[in-house]
Structure formats: C-alpha cells, structure tokens
C-alpha cells in the first residue's frame, strides 16, 4: 500500500494496479463463477501467527502450538472437517509473530488479504490476543481467545461480538482463590496471615490488584505484599523475608521462570506454609518434571478435571502426538476445546460462512474435552481457578462447585529431599 506521503505518481500507480487487479479478479470471477461453485471447497484454509521466537515462545510452545498441531493432525486423519455431506481436509498457513504485537497484526493481515484463509486461530497470550482483536473484528473472523486472562473480557466481548474469552478474568481468579482460603479458614485449617508477591508485569499486576481488596475484605492479614521486576534472577531475599514472617498462606502471582525459582528457593529455605500457591507455570509439565514428589500439595493457577475420561484420553493423545510432551494443566485443554468448538460450529453451519459460525459459537452447545460448553455473553460459565498437585496430577480444586472438583490437601506436606 502506498504511504500517505508518497508522491502522487506513486499513488496513481498503486491505484491503477489495484484497479487492474480488481478488474482482472472480477473478470475471472465472472467467467469462472459457475465452475467455482461446482468445484466448491476442496480444503479449508486455516491460518495462524504464533510466537515461534521471542519472549512468548516458552508459553506458546507448551500451550498453543502442540494443540494446534494435534487438532489439525486428528481432523485430517479423520478425513477433514465435515461440510454438508463431505469431509474437507484442513490446509494450514502459519507465520511467526516474533512475540511482537505489530508483527502479529501484520501477519494476520497477510493471512486475510494474501493467503485468503477461511479461519484464523489466535496467538498465545493476553497481550497479543488484545492486539489482534480489532483486526479480527473488522474482518469478521471468529476469535477464540483461549490463552488470554483479562478483566476487560466482558467489555471486549460486547465490543467485538466475534471474540470469545475462554480463560476468564483475573478478578474472577483472585475471587476464587480468596473464597477457597476463606473456606479453609472457616474449617480451621489455616490462620489468617497471608504473604503475597507478584511480578511487576501484566498478569502479576492484574491478579494482585484484584486479590488485595478481596483479601482485606475477607479480613485476612496481608503480612507481606510486594512485587519484583520481570527477569529477577535471585528471589532468595523475598523468600527469606517471608519465611521470617511465618505466614499461613503464600501466594505468588508469578511467571514460569519465577514460579520455578520461588518453589526451588522455598524448598531450600524451608518455607513451607499451610497453603503454597504459585502462578503461571505451576500447571506446566516442566514443574512436575523438576520437582517430582515435592509438587505434592502445591497449589497454582489453573487445574483441570484430572479424573474425567475425556481429559485422560486427551492427555494420552497429546503425549502420543507431541513426542511424549504433556500439555499444561490449565489453558492447554481449553485451547483444544476451543478448536473442537470451532470445528463443531463450522460443521453445524455446513459451509464457510464466518458470520454464521460466529452466531453458532455464541449460541450453540459444544461437546469438548473440558465437558459441555455453552457460552454466555461470549464467555464460558465455569473455569478452573485453583489447582493442586495431588499424587502427580494437577487437579482443579476451586471453584468447588465445578464438576470434578477435588478437596484441597491442607496443610501442604513438608518438602522432601529430591
């Protein structure tokens, strides 16, 4: 596209080429129109731009990419997506968004305008999903954000009716955690001192600013409440100070590297409160791999119904497809479920009609690995907010009303030597 300040000749050229292209396209369409309809769809083009490089790679490589690949493989092995009475295979076009919002939007525009994909799968993470929201909305593509946690989700769902926010809001996450703590205190399993740390970045700021008032309103004593900058390489001072305060509850709204570092340091310093909760990364297979028996009783954000046959089956298929790599126990299953929803919506509509697919996603009921899903105001009605490692599996424990919720193991068992 010619820049705004380009000389007029250049603009003219662009205009001419564009008009020529349009004319050519129109002629083609006119002459080939009939055959095109008769040939119909031979494949469904699905495009995505995902973080293959840059800081988001760690998350995308665990949660998003394996699920996209698993789903495409399974659908194509079954013959494809059912359009009317025949199955049509998926053709994938993918780019690297380099963990960069502008690059993600550019890649999406390329997918839409140049590759002319039928559907688009979203990028990984809250930031990038917010960044691509306007483009997907403008172009009328369904946007199934399965890895974004934001308090603006209800508002965004209203503003962009094509967008679906499947992972919920941070206020909800904090509320569920505090409800669980409240219940544990009522059962006299814990006292009321809480130590909270958070990373000074999107996730940590959102969660801690939602948890702070919720904890104070529930009359918990916040003995420690501090944040640390992203990329902090030694969290020992924080852990040591908290240990000296001897709290009943330790909450860390952390990112994967710090989640691992905080757990490691707590074990070394012997910080073993009755409730030990860490943030993103607790649900990662790497966490179990690194801490083994020491995961027992650790709580974290996320969780899934580990006892459900659908989840067990999903876990087995994921491992088989991804070279033995396990999914994470939070957004992975939701991501896979979002793909099942997309497929079911397309099949119910029976043709590539994005507006109808969006409508079906808004109103339909879907059968997925995380159970029956029916969206209300473009958001699910139930989420897993607190999970706990119990016997090598990260089970959802809160909200307690969720089907398959396990009882929390409190107090957390002591750390053992690795």
């Amino acid at each position, binding site marked *: 596209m010619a820049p705004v300040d380009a000389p007029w000749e250049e603009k003219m050229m662009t205009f001419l080429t564009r008009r020529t292209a349009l004319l050519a396209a129109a002629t083609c369409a006119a002459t080939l129109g009939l055959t095109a309809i008769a040939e119909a769809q031979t494949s469904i083009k699905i495009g995505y731009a995902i*973080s*293959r*490089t*840059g*800081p988001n*790679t*760690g998350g*995308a*490589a*665990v949660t998003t*990419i394996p699920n996209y690949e698993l789903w495409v493989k399974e659908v194509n092995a079954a013959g494809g997506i059912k359009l009317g009475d025949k199955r049509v295979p998926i053709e994938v076009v993918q780019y690297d968004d380099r*963990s960069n919002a502008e690059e993600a939007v550019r890649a999406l525009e390329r997918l839409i305008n140049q590759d002319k994909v039928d559907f688009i799968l979203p990028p990984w993470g809250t930031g990038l999903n917010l960044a691509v929201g306007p483009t997907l909305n403008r172009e009328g593509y369904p946007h199934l954000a399965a890895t974004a946690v934001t308090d603006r989700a209800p508002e965004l769902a209203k503003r962009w009716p094509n967008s679906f926010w499947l992972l919920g809001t941070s206020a909800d996450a904090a509320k569920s955690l505090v409800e669980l703590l409240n219940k544990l205190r009522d059962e006299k399993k814990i006292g009321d001192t809480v130590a909270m*740390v958070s990373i*000074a970045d999107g996730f940590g700021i959102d969660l801690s600013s939602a948890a702070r008032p919720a904890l104070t309103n529930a009359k918990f004593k916040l003995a420690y409440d*501090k*944040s*640390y*900058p992203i*990329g*902090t*390489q*030694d*969290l*020992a*001072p*924080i852990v*040591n*100070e908290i240990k000296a305060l001897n709290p009943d509850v330790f909450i860390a709204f952390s990112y*994967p*590297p710090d989640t*691992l*570092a905080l757990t*490691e*340091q707590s*074990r*070394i*310093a*012997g910080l073993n409160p009755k409730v030990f909760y860490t943030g993103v*990364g607790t649900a*990662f297979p*790497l966490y179990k791999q*690194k*801490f083994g028996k020491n995961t027992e009783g650790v709580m974290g954000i996320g969780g899934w119904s580990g006892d459900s046959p659908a989840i067990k089956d999903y876990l087995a298929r994921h491992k088989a497809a991804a070279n033995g*790599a396990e999914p994470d126990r939070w957004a992975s299953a939701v991501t896979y479920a979002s793909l099942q929803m997309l497929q079911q919506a397309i099949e119910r509509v029976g043709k590539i009609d994005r507006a109808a697919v969006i409508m079906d996603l808004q109103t339909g009921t879907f059968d997925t690995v995380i159970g029956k899903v029916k969206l209300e105001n473009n958001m699910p009605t139930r989420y897993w907010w607190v999970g706990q490692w119990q016997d090598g599996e990260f089970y959802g424990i809160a909200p307690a009303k969720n089907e398959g919720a396990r009882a929390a193991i409190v107090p957390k068992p002591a750390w053992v*030597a*690795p």
Partner: protein
Amino acid sequence: MTNAILTGLMLGGMYALIAMGLTLQYGVARIMNLSYGEFLIAAAFASHWLFTGWAISPFVGLALVVPLAFVLNFAIYKLLLTPLVRRAPNRDALEVDSILATFGLTFVIQGSMLALFGGAYYSYSFLAFPVQFLGETVAANRLAALGITILLGLALYAALTRTRAGTAVRAVAVDPFAAQLVAINVPQASALTFALGGALVAAAGVLVSTFLTFSASSGVVFTMKALIVVVMGGVGNMLGCLVAGLALGLSEALVASYVDPGLTLAVNFALFLAVLLVKPAGLLGRATR
C-alpha cells in the same frame, strides 16, 4: 544481614561470571559480541542435554563444553570476524561491523536452538539442596557456582598478570598498534582472547543452567546484563568486571531485603548511571581517548 550479603555475593558472582567473557571479547579482541547471551544459552542447553540424557554432572560437563566452546569461538573469529578486522580502518568501524555481524549470528544460534530444542522452558535440578554456610541456609548450586567463579576469576587474573601471554593480551587491550611494535602477534592474540571469552561464557552457561530456568530465546537478557557489568567495570578490565558484578549483585540483594524487591532494577540502573557520570570509562577503566 549476613543472608542478604551472601545472596548479594552469589548473585554478584554470577553477574561477574557472565560478564568476564564479554570483557575479554570486547576489551581485547574489540568484538562487541551481541550473540554473547546466545552462546551462554547454547552452553546451558548442552549441559541440560548431558545431564538429563547421559546423567553427566554439569561439573564434568564443564570439562566437555568449555574446550568445545573455545575451539568453536576460535573458528568463528578466524572465519567470520577476521575479514571484518582486516578491512576495518579503525576501532570504531570494527565495533559497528562486529555489532552487525554478531547480531546476525544471534539469529543463527537462536534458530538452531529453536529447531533442536523447541521454544519451551528448560530447567533441571542439580545440587538443589540447602547447605549451611556462615550460619545461613543457601542453595548448594548457587554456592558452587560462586566458588567456581572465584576460581576462574583468580586463575584468569593470575594468567593475565603473571604470564607472558597474559601480558601480551593486556598490551593488545591497551593499544593494538603499539603492541605490534614489541613483536606481539596481535591477530593471533585477539583470536585466542576471543576464544577464551567464548570458553568463559560457556562455563557461565553451564553453571547458570544449574539454578536458572532458560529457554532458547532468553539469551538477550544475559547479553544486556553482561554489557552493563562490562561497561560499568571498565571495558577489558577483569578486576573491574568483578567489582561491578559484585556491586550490582549486592545492591540488588540489599534493596530487595531492606527496601522493596520492586526497586532492584531501578537501583541497578541508578548505580550504573552514577558510575558512568563520575567515571565515564568505568570503575577501573582508563580513559584512552
């Protein structure tokens, strides 16, 4: 207090370790190596692979990875960087050229690591148990890393000040043209120093991998940290590197313990700025131009 100081020393030791190689590469060989952090991560991956795949302890891994890194870096200098050194009319031009060349190298190394290991986070447990040291509980792997850093630092310092080759290296650092006048083979000394820097960063990568979580794209963090330490300590100055690393680590640990962990970065950069305002050539650097 002891605890905060100990933590600070361990963190500072790690910073110094990370930066030692860069100060050699930048200060002596005049190569501003932007792919420095990627080399560190590559060594971390090597150590992870040896440990999880072959049950080879990272300490033994050091003996394998470090010489390999030396040879690899020597080859890189000879094949990729020597042409740049030859055609550069002066130091500034070489700096610009080497920045561009090693920036490209960043993508090559990062891309290879992504292809081999994928983008996920990696971490393993080695010596991850508490030990009592000076009456405080610290992590054994961090303490071991500090010990090895001190050994490496002392050995390097002795080599640079007590041996003939070391003196030659220092002469090249001060003035590569004058060094030629006293029959020092400057290209050879530069190549060896660059390779030595590469060996040091590999050692840092192996040690850091025992206690930090890393992924194929986390190299840039280490390049930045190393650059700060090198510039703050005085480019090409080993002792300056150690002093600057420890100063950063101690300030970070003290601020995190007594003020607020949220201010560690601010204090780091404030210290960096203050040093540069008072001594633009770094703590122990000499103003040459």
